């Protein structure tokens, strides 16, 4: 949206940031989901580490499984680090402006909408753009395994549909992060 029209981005951001359903229903559900996913991940991983106390002297896991499937912890931690940064950099200042300072207007000091301007400002910094793009590489790797793995875990597997799910999952895992990367790079390049 930010790529297409400044105004649409501003109004959507304002809507997302002030709408009660989004803020007080959807956002908590998402937050709960993230926390649940994270705590289950940590819990199961601790069990898994305990399940093999002595490691192999020689191991070739690459011969039977993909790197993504074996390193969900690494890609997950990278995504979490990005989330932490995103919180510190975006969420906390947002909360501060809206609920502590009490400014729900979404306006900057000149009376214009502030969202697009803030976004442009963020992506003017090449370091931030690189960090952002890298995080989405990790998200892509995480999803490449995660999407189809989720179906298997709930028992959905079918000779006809599983290959389709795997393909759709691969497309989703690449297209969505690629879209986010594009946004960052677009705004960086457009300000050069």
């Amino acid at each position: 949206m930010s790529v297409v029209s400044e105004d649409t981005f501003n109004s959507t951001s304002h809507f997302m940031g002030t709408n009660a359903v989004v803020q007080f229903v959807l956002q908590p559900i998402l937050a709960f989901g993230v926390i649940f996913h994270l705590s289950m991940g940590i819990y199961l991983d601790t069990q898994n580490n305990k399940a093999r106390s002595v490691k192999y002297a020689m191991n070739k896991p690459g011969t039977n499984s993909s790197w993504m499937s074996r390193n969900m912890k690494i890609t997950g931690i990278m995504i979490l680090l990005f989330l932490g940064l995103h919180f510190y950099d975006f969420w906390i200042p947002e909360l501060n402006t809206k609920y502590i300072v009490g400014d729900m207007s979404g306006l900057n000091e000149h009376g214009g909408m502030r969202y697009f301007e803030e976004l442009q400002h963020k992506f003017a910094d090449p370091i931030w753009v690189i960090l952002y793009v890298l995080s989405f590489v990790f998200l892509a790797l995480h999803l490449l395994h995660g999407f189809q793995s989720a179906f298997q875990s709930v028992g959905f597997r079918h000779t006809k549909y599983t290959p389709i799910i795997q393909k759709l999952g691969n497309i989703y895992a690449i297209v969505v992060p690629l879209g986010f990367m594009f946004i960052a790079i677009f705004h960086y390049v457009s300000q050069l």
Partner: protein
Amino acid sequence: MSDKGMNLTLKIWRQKDAQSQGKMETYQIADISEHMSFLEMLDVLNEQLISEGQEPVAFDHDCREGICGMCSLYINGEAHGPDRGVTTCQLHMRMFNDGDTIYIEPFRAKAFPVVKDLVVDRSAFDRIQHSGGFVSVNTSGNTQDANALPIPKDDADKAFDAATCIGCGACVATCKNASAMLYVSAKVSQFALLPQGKVEAKDRVMNMVKQMDLEGFGNCTNTGACEVECPKGISLDNIARMNREYLKAAIDK
């Protein structure tokens, strides 16, 4: 066919007993025929060790024809070695080259404790099986002929495929989480697919999964490594089936 007569360096896990600390030891072995099976190569090594007055290497084996599931070994970083669809007893030395170094380790899992050298205790599998891997059939003398029950060919085939699991434990050894899901799901599936197994389906899956967790196996993260290394080609379809069976049973209970 000419015989290569390979000279090999073997790095083998030696451990006196369950309590002792083990370590990798290096052995040289000469003139190994490419036609030998991997276990025959170990037999040659053991004869050599005995003649030198050393303790032979303990390893599990029984049928030596790929049907009993007794042989094991983690060879050069893979369960049952580098070949596909075979057990260690069916692995041939032609898969290796003269001058190779071969790492030979026991299957590693907390639930498979080492007994001695390369021998591990896989009785955890037996306990899982005892907890639900059976059908209660009346054997009073009026037992119904199995053929009297119509079963779709597709289901019968899938049940048979699941039943080909020989309980070797390569799936556990291979899994980065030492998960036993492939084994347990094969044992659940072979019954779940047949009408005779439907009666106890819910208790079976709940109890077998419970026992699996009690034994200390890890959790499945769907890496798919087990299916690749399984000598019997047990499919991940079985794991999905068990997940379905488990969900159904858990919701109903």
